[in-house]
């Protein structure tokens, strides 16, 4: 289990993460979402010990610095040596990661139809990412940290990568933290989401919790309701188009209020992660 207590990270006078607390259990795929500059990459770099920080980050009860062979950080910019192929880079990582699996490496080459002998600097951006991910997964980490790793991959590759991650989680119980702007990309792979905003993880929920907790409903009225409708209620979102009102709310407390407004139509709509992310963000900003 990854446990973060009171993590604070500043760049000069600018505080990026302030007394952040967070826990990630084993065998989970967590999407780390947040607006630009929220500190997603910084948080991952702190977990990977790239950045120094104040506070405590432990993995399996030990300081994360002592557990680095169980972690692998895939940076948003793929790393390789000049003129080195994926095959050469494999040797580099193998000299550091004692659990490097040749079997996994060969399987991933096959799955991705990847040419390991081609110099990485000659590969496209997407293929460079693939190379980094193949190497990272082959290191057999218990916690895989992926910083914007899906960017630049074509849909087919994304699908294959998602399958591979799901396979790793199911078969080997590893945990994965994926930071991304593209929430839709994370929806069908993550078990849960963590929203990083205002220097803190402001919520962490599983997909199941998200589906149960957030509701989007379209309401139809015989007469166009006035602006006082639902005033003072804890709505995350409200949009009115003449006689049709669309609302998003959290929990089940508002159901009775909605019914009491006597709509002639109550139409529950599917809510995407992206919508949840947007309304939560706006809601927090309004609170401020």
């Amino acid at each position, binding site marked *: 289990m990854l446990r973060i207590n009171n993590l604070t990270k500043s760049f000069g006078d600018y505080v990026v993460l302030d007394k952040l607390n967070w826990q990630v259990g084993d065998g989970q795929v967590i999407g780390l979402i947040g607006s630009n500059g929220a500190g997603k990459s910084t948080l991952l770099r702190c977990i990977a010990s*790239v950045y120094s920080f104040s506070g405590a980050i432990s993995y399996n009860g030990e300081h994360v610095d002592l557990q680095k062979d169980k*972690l692998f950080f895939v940076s948003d910019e793929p790393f390789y040596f000049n003129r080195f192929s994926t095959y050469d880079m494999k040797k*580099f990582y193998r000299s*550091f990661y004692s659990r490097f699996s040749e079997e996994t490496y060969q399987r991933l080459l096959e799955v991705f139809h990847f040419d390991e002998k081609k110099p990485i600097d000659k590969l496209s951006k997407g293929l460079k990412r693939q190379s980094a991910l193949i190497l990272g997964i082959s290191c057999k980490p218990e916690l895989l940290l992926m910083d914007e790793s899906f960017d630049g991959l074509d849909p087919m590759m994304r699908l294959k990568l998602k399958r591979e991650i799901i396979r790793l989680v199911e078969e080997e119980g590893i945990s994965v933290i994926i930071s991304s702007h593209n929430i839709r990309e994370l929806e069908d792979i993550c078990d849960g989401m963590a929203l990083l905003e205002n220097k803190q993880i402001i919520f962490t929920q599983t997909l199941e919790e998200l589906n149960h907790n957030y509701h989007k409903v379209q309401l139809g009225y015989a007469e166009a309701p006035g602006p006082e409708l639902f005033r003072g209620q804890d709505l995350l979102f409200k949009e009115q188009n003449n006689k049709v009102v669309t609302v998003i709310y959290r929990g089940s407390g508002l159901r009775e209020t909605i019914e009491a407004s006597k709509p002639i139509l109550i139409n529950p709509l599917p809510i995407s992660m992206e919508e949840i992310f947007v309304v939560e963000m706006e809601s927090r900003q309004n609170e401020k």
Partner: protein
Amino acid sequence: MKNKNHVSRYLFHLLKQFRAIAILYAILYFLAYPFIMLMQILTLSMGGSQRYVANALPIYGAPTLLILATLATGLITPYIIFSYLYKRADMDTYFALPIRKSKLFLIQTFFAWLIQIVPILIMNGLGYAIALIASKTSPLFVMNVNHDNARALLFSSLIFMMGSFFLMILSILAILCTTSLFNGIVYGIVLNGFPYVLFFLWQSYQVNFPGYTSTISQPLQKGLTDVSTIGLMKQESPLLFHDNFLRAISALWESNFLFGRLTDHDRFMTLFMWVLLAFVLSLPLLALATYLYKIRKVERIQSTSIFRYFYPIVIYSFGVMLLMSSLKTFIDESYNWYAEALTVFLIGFALYYVVQIIRYHGWPKFFSNLGIYILVFILSFGLNFTLSKTQTRILTYQVPKLNQIGKAQIVTADQMRYDEEPYEHERPYIYFEPYGTVNKFEIYDTKGKEDIDHVRQIHKAILKDITDNNRTDSWRSVGHHEDVAAIQIYYYDVANRLIMVRTYDVYDKDLQKEIEMLINHPLYTYQIPAYEEKGY
């Protein structure tokens, strides 16, 4: 990384990563020493005469080019191995690797040393072998095969190993304290140059006092010591590392190949000890570098600074030294010192401001920088004033104690230069400051305690005359003077090592007579016309 196997794996990986550099170095070192030596031997064997051989021997004896190549690669290699320290994406990977940062750094440093030192040692040995074979196959080449040669090989190898390491550490420190490659190179040059600037600045306060005698390159005859070998203006110092490194091996190999033994053992050992001292110093510097590596902040790469106070400390330290040097030069040589000091102030500020523009990539705040500069200038001015006064006073009034002196000499010489007519070719000559080489001179030489003490008393009387008549600015006094006698006083210890030499103009007639009575010879005199005033 939990076992040695992984370390060796990583070292092999590094060798693969930097194989091009390793090959390049091997070629460079080969061309710099064994190849050149081979070509020279072949050329000489085919048509050389004894005369050419005699000229060429020091060249093939001393691997000067190899030392220069070692100097260059020692300084450059860290910039190749540690270039990733300037790339954030690369640092992400390196710092996330499951290995202690200090261990990673030490492996890389060791590798950087290894790719230099292995080919250097091979080429050094190869050069030795070529010289040995040449000496056995042709009578043209003089090299005595004995233990000293083997010792020379061993010592030169040691010097190469220690020297390369120290050179690397300076570059590594510059890299670790900077945020971009350009700054790293600039501050690498600065760190390497720092001891030299310090040394020459300090040395500049050791000259221009009454009695000062500069280094003399010409050998003196008639039993006088060559001042350059012991030098009051010493050109040797532990600070001048690159110079010591170069000269230590040169001294060792030249003497061995030419004479089969160390001709100047003491001098070589001094240089060797200084290289050893630098190597010993490099160990705490390595510890410091390891610490700096551990705390290197990835997020500060390509920003204004890694360590907030590093750039200011270097810039202001250098600034103080340059200002002191400039102030000393102008204030010593001109009566309008305040005007010159103002010029130094203004030029110094302009330079400082340009440095700040480069540093901040834009216009820095004018008045706050001016304020800081004024403080730096005041500090430099004060230090220069204090050092000038204290050093001048100490050096001016120094006279060795009687029990320190084994021999004393007084030399008087005629101003006539040996190349001026009439020149008597048959007479021996000496170098006599300030005239140059002269052949009309008289040397008084004494080992008697009473006479030595008399020389000391005369020395003190000259110093009193300097004080009483305000002749403190220089050995040349202002105004018109007739029959001034220039003399030199030498003091040697009981082992006949020169411990002090001073040159004075003796103005006082009574003092001149006293000296003449002691040395039993009239003093050579000259006239100082009024236009020879100081500063004109």
